[in-house]
């Protein structure tokens, strides 16, 4: 299996060569063999020594083609590349709904203090659509593309969570 870590350009191959009962594991990563000593493992959390350096890894989200992980305090995304997952990814990219593109979502939780446009208005990318308040700050949510406002999904004073859809722009 090949792995792409974060936005690093090169892929790393990886495989487990041998595991012993005492927690020592021989792995091959990027063409080189490494000794790994597993100190502690849970479903989503691992502590191990890799070539004499301690690492702590916590897996936040794990899918068949992508793993979100925090390694030594640093959040990372690891994408798995095998022929099968590549095929699946391409298929989903081609046949995907694309619906996410229409929706303007809030990247932060907050309270709606102002709605700056009306349904039917034409807007340009960067125009302020909604103003949110969170932690005593006013944050403007701006149009993610040029288009026409098809729908406003929130009302003034409403609370929104992260990733809630605020408006539909087509």
């Amino acid at each position, binding site marked *: 299996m090949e*792995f792409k870590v*974060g936005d690093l350009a090169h892929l790393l191959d*990886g495989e487990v060569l041998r*595991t012993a009962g005492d927690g020592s594991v021989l792995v091959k990563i990027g063409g080189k063999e490494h000794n790994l000593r597993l100190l502690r493992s849970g479903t*989503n959390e691992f502590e191990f020594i890799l070539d004499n350096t301690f690492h702590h890894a916590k897996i936040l989200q794990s899918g068949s083609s992508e*793993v979100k992980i925090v390694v030594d*305090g640093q959040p990372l995304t690891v994408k798995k590349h095998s022929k099968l997952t590549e095929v699946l990814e391409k298929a989903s990219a081609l046949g995907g709904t694309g619906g996410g593109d229409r929706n303007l979502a809030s990247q932060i*939780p907050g309270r709606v203090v102002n709605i700056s446009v009306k349904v039917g208005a034409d807007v340009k990318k960067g125009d302020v659509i909604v103003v949110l308040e969170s*932690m005593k700050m*006013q944050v403007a949510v701006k149009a993610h593309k040029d288009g026409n406002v098809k729908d406003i999904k929130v009302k003034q004073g409403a609370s929104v969570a992260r990733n809630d859809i605020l408006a539909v722009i087509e």
Partner: protein
Amino acid sequence: MAEKISSILIANRGEIALRVIRCCKELGIRSIAIYSDEDVRAIHVKRADEAYHIGPAAPAQSYLNMAKIVETAKGAGADAIHPGYGFLSENENFPEMCEKNGIIFIGPTAKAMEVTGDKMKCKEVMNNAKVPTVPGSDGIIEDVEKAADIAHKAGYPVLLKSAFGGGGRGIRLANDEKQLRQEFEMASAESKAAFGKAALFVEKYLQRIRHIEFQLIRDSHGNGRHLFERECSIQRRHQKLIEMSPSPVVDQKTRERIGEIAVRAAAAVDYLNAGTAEFLRDPEGNFYFIEINSRLQVEHPVTELVTGLDLVKLQIAVAQGEEIPFKQEDLKMNGCAIECRINAEDPFYDFAPSVGPVPTCNIPYGPGVRVDTYLYPTCTVSGYYDSLVAKLLTWGRHFDEARVRMRNALDEFAIEGINTTIPLYKTIMEEDNFIKGDLSTDYLDRFKIFDKMAGDVKERTKDRASAAVAAVLLQSEFVKKSGTTENNAAARSKWKSRGATS
């Protein structure tokens, strides 16, 4: 004069409430906390001798509810109220209400607060006292047309400031008239929400300036002292991120000269208790007084580390009528201190607020490290209140020792569940211009710090790539095994939830 204070109600929450509670415990003073519905499990509730519920989550109905707070203080038999910073700390009606109810307000008098809170009035008083002030407009503007007119005359860029603001809140930059009109609306809304009034003023935006402030303490006998400067130039949206003392551009002579002006400014408004005189310094070395912050400031521990003083203890002593127990010449600057404000904000996404539960956290410790925080494992960061979750401070014999200690402490500081400004500070601590002391309020943009931060993340990703792949391999191994034997329970419950609930 007044009797010894034996109990204090802390009209605040978060790290500053804990700070005051700790001070009360040292002095043998009964500490009384208040809390909103949102804060039932907050650390100040746990650590105070007593804790009283005062209302719903929204600040207006709890931490800003003067009548309720004073009533609670009377019911609990509190001798005094400490307002912390923010909330009611600079509301001139609050000290008056305390006084009427026979409660000592630990802070300035209502009168001094009124003058310092109104930036325009304060500017006038300072000009009369020959304290140099920043050149610019000298009146309140309520109308956007007038603002546009003044801005046109002064020349863009200009700053829009709330006359009742403070700590950088309600300050906005406008580069042209279109932006001025947009920002005027939002700034007045913010100002209204935070202070109930929308009076703004316009000021020419000075470029490449430093923000340098002097800590003040003044007693009821007319003794005033400055406790040296803090350099607070690293800001975003005009709010301080990093503070330190000494400033790399203040030598002993300058310290004495500007410190004397700061003490004079405090005397001009008959100031009482702890406060801060804020100055701008232009690249030519000129200092302009801008305002007095009439409260204990967020960054007061920086001064505590280089002077050895406990500012909250000093506040309490002054509030009970004591004289300041030292002369100006007794004070000596000892080493260097740096503070990083750890905010629950995502520095990779324009400082967007980040709230929610914090399942675990590791608070750094060790030689030269001080932390003030309300975080603890299983606590929650609320969106109702300020985004400051921790203040990380380091002390060293000199700047560079404090700096490398900060770099390490940032690495040790782990906060799970929310985004924080820690990655930004990691980059700054190793950034050349910061190390050289080439600071200004536009530091972040001027030196493309966000690009550097992204580059650092890439480096860290590179360093951890093998470990990340190893972890994913381990997980696969683990899932493989658990699928067959050990982890049957989990597998079963997953199947069940699929069938039953989803």
